[in-house]
């Protein structure tokens, strides 16, 4: 397909990084539109014309608009030539999808709740309160309004944060056990499951140093470093503009955490 690809994204991180790294692995050129999540660019009228939900990322391919990041990864592998990023064996495809759901709806929400309470909330709270209130009111999806309100006003209960910490520990251990038996998420071949997991977990050694390190989780560490060494990963993370994406450098083998 020769129609142009445009990607609206933030930092190579979490949901934005998933299609960025997938496009890079497939060798697909795309026009990049960087939106600053912390400045609420994603809720501005010009972007809402692309994605009325105001969530990032969004991909436009010709006249098709895609707004769900994990299905978007499958689309990129499905619609473009280049190295296959999904196993052809349906049993392994099932495994890839199971792990992507585990990352997306179990691991990621807990990890991001901790991250937002520590980094994003305090960073955004510096702004003018009236401006912030108006910015929150512009968020189209109620679930996202609730999430931003909680992060900005630090409304996470100690119980919620404790449960998130418990889940991060549990999920880290499940992942370590899986990677002890498998080189990649689906076994022998690199796939969308690894791309998804890297976007979730590349900063784990920094954000959870006592849980994710060379002694406790050597297989996660090796898996992250191998993904970091891929040319597509280097190229994608070089598009980062903030300290958030720069955290990836701690995966250099010369860096002793």
């Amino acid at each position, binding site marked *: 397909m020769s129609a142009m690809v445009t990607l609206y994204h933030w930092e190579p991180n979490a949901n934005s990084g998933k299609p960025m790294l997938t496009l890079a692995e497939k060798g697909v050129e795309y026009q990049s539109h960087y939106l600053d999540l912390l400045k609420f660019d994603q809720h501005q009228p010009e972007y809402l014309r692309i994605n009325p939900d105001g969530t990032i990322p969004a991909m436009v391919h010709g006249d*098709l608009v*895609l707004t*769900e990041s*994990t*299905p*978007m990864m*499958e*689309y990129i592998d*499905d*619609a473009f030539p280049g190295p296959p990023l999904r196993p052809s064996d*349906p*049993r392994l*495809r*099932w*495994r890839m*999808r*199971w*792990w992507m*759901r*585990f990352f997306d*709806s*179990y691991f990621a*929400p*807990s990890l991001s*709740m901790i991250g937002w309470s520590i980094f994003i909330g305090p960073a955004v709270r510096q702004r003018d309160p009236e401006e912030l209130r108006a910015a929150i009111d512009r968020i189209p*999806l*109620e*679930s996202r309004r*609730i*999430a931003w309100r*909680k992060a900005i006003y630090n409304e996470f209960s100690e119980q*919620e944060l404790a*449960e*998130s910490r418990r889940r991060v520990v*549990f999920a880290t251990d*499940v992942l370590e*056990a*899986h990677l002890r038996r498998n080189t990649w998420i689906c076994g022998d071949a690199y796939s969308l499951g690894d791309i998804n997991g890297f976007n979730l977990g590349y900063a784990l050694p920094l954000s959870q140093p006592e849980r994710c390190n060379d002694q406790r989780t050597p297989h996660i560490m090796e898996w992250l470093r191998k993904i970091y060494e891929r040319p597509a990963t280097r190229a994608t993370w070089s598009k980062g503009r903030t300290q958030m994406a720069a955290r990836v450098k701690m995966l250099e083998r010369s860096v002793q955490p």
Partner: protein
Amino acid sequence: MLELYHWEPNIFFLKPLVALAEKGEPYTAHYFDPTSFQQFEPDFPATDESSLHLEREGPVLVDDGTVIASSFFMLEYIAEAFAGPALMPSSPYGRYLVHAWGQTIALSVANAVAMLGCARHLAPTLRLRPSQDLKTRLASIEPLERRLAWTAVLDRSEADAAAAARGQLASPLRRIEAALTSSPWLAGTEYSIADIDAFAMLAPLPELAPELVNASATPHIAAFLARMHARPAVRAALALTRTGRPAHAFVPGPESARWG
């Protein structure tokens, strides 16, 4: 050999029964009752992945020893692994829509429908059991997320469940109604596993939440449910009921988003 462990043809359990009938794929059926907790017994097929808690309770497909769990991913597996009708659209974008609908149904619809059905049908039957026995049984469920899902069924009133479910369902139902306004099937003009997936979770709503799904509020969803009910594969799947009341068979579903 292909084996399917399933309960009554409703919600999660209905999906593979319909898809395998559409494919015309033969299999050995193992009927089990999740309310007697057979799925936690040591001889029930399980892997590290299937015993986790993403969908909570549901069907299990065993294909030559490989355990396939999680009902939407099971539908994708059935579509891709077996001969017969494709059950997937022919274009990459149509397939994207199938994946995106599967995500919406699992994350925004399944929890609410299971919560409503459990409050109406499962909780009253659980409450009839000797309470100490039941509490002891529930306390031994691993992992924690599944234990909490079962205890929540007992703790939640039907009114609370209805209020929570109404809030969760408003937006996805609007989207589904809008999609079915412009095409007969969820992913476009071709019938697919997205339709089987959505049908299995929406079919109980006209009875559980008639104010949300009915011929005047959601005419296109109502017509879609009727189209699905007319399919021979759906009739064959529903005929597998042993209780005669498949629409009353509920188990706890996946949890709702933790941030909301």
